[in-house]
């Protein structure tokens, strides 16, 4: 590669333009300076989603042998252990049936109450299943690429869960793939609450496996082992999605042991969510009608 104005020659007689190399350096620096997830220009977003959409089939292909290895792993175990596991799973299934019935019963009850009170609840649409295509737990970003995009109904901000709990939310949506920012990422901020006491907090990722609970009030009623769920306070995701269990670290700060960590994140569900629009207040309603009133007043003054 040509450095310092000269071109390099070797047995392959290679010559590379110094100007072009310098231009590429500058382009890299410009990209680093301007490509920010929070304020990404549409052009860069378009380039990124196009690249991920195009590479999705290739990544799926690369992940296939890994999934196959993962699937044959139980066959290594001896038959006795498999039988025990089977019995345990049947027992859990029976328990789950009871909870499913209870959930359906409560849902029906809630619908009746909502109709009686004329209340509109947060709309949860059909969940969208997707395989993980790419997995990045690097030092700069913790994210997953999943095989569902705008064509399947995925939108930016949608929460993503695995079989145990929430893993993150969609931050980039292509046509056939989406990027999920993990709860553990530095840029992740999710409003949560304790299921038992409704104590509010913000779940803040810090690149560790246990994200922190920040902005707790001093007298917040929080205990070790409290179930943490989404509070939906930001209006961008539903209330009550399972997140994890509260626990104190060595410094006494509250952190969350994520439910989703119980298994490798392979198959996930995206929960499209339509937030309820805020009600129009009386002041806003008056402001909306104000221009007409002003015009009338001006007209009257003119006469």
């Amino acid at each position, binding site marked *: *590669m040509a*450095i310092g104005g000269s071109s*390099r020659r*070797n*047995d*392959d*007689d*290679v010559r*590379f333009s110094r100007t*072009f*190399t310098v231009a*590429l*350096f500058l*382009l*890299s*620096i*410009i*990209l*680093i300076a301007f*490509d*920010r*997830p929070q304020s990404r220009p549409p052009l*860069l977003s378009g*380039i*990124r989603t196009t*690249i*991920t959409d195009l*590479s999705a089939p*290739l*990544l799926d*292909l*690369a*992940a296939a042998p*890994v*999934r196959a*290895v*993962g699937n044959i*792993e139980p066959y290594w175990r001896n038959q006795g252990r498999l039988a025990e596991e089977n019995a345990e799973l049947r027992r859990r299934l029976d328990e789950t049936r009871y909870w499913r019935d209870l959930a359906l019963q409560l849902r029906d009850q809630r619908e009746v109450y909502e109709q009686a009170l004329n209340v509109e609840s947060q709309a949860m649409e059909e969940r969208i299943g997707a395989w*993980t*295509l*790419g*997995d*990045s*737990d*690097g*030092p*700069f*970003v913790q*994210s*997953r*690429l999943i095989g569902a995009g705008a064509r399947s109904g995925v939108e930016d901000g949608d929460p993503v869960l695995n079989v145990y709990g929430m893993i993150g939310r969609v931050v*980039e949506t292509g046509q056939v793939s989406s*990027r999920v*920012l993990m709860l553990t990422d*530095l*840029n992740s901020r999710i409003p949560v609450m304790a299921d038992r006491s409704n104590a509010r907090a913000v779940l803040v990722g810090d*690149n560790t496996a246990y994200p922190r609970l920040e902005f707790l009030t001093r007298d917040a009623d929080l205990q070790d082992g409290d179930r943490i769920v989404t509070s939906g306070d930001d209006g961008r995701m539903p209330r009550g999605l399972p997140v994890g269990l509260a626990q104190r670290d060595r410094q006494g700060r509250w952190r969350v042991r994520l439910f989703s960590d119980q298994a*490798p*994140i*392979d198959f996930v569900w995206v929960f499209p969510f339509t937030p309820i629009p805020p009600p129009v207040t009386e002041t806003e309603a008056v402001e909306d009608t104000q221009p007409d009133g002003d015009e009338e007043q001006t007209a009257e003054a003119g006469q």
Partner: protein
Amino acid sequence: MRPPIETRPPFGLIAWAVISLMGSLAFYAAPLRIAGGPDLMPMLPLITLFIWSTVRPRFIPPIVIFVVGLLQDVLSGGVMGIWALAYLSAMTITRSREEEGPTREIGPVWIRFLVTLIIAVPIAWGAGSLVIGQMAPVRPLLIESVASALMFPLIALLFIRRRPRGAFGS
């Protein structure tokens, strides 16, 4: 008139280079932990870039290094330009040291790769830290670097074995 055999571009090798670079990017980004495997992935794109730039330097112009770095940035979900800048800097510096003639033996090539790694990783770490506004964790990069350093000779040996005289890329 048909060009002489020596000047015809080796399309097969070019295709092989493209496939190996794309494959290295795909395996680097693939979710290997879904099978319960360890979180240990060498920097396959850098290894592949380095081997091709040693075997066939003309296949790896700066634009290819830039594009591979950029694709790695996008596929890993990071800010664009971090790995592109790191790879460009490292490869440019180590290539410039070949002015006196490229080394073809595995030992010196391995050392040159280690130098490339030692240049690329701190640049990526520095750029990444600037982007996230705080010191990025060192451990993941350290693990990736050690895995890359250990895996490099194994991959490089495959290329050497294909050449009966033991010459690397000759």
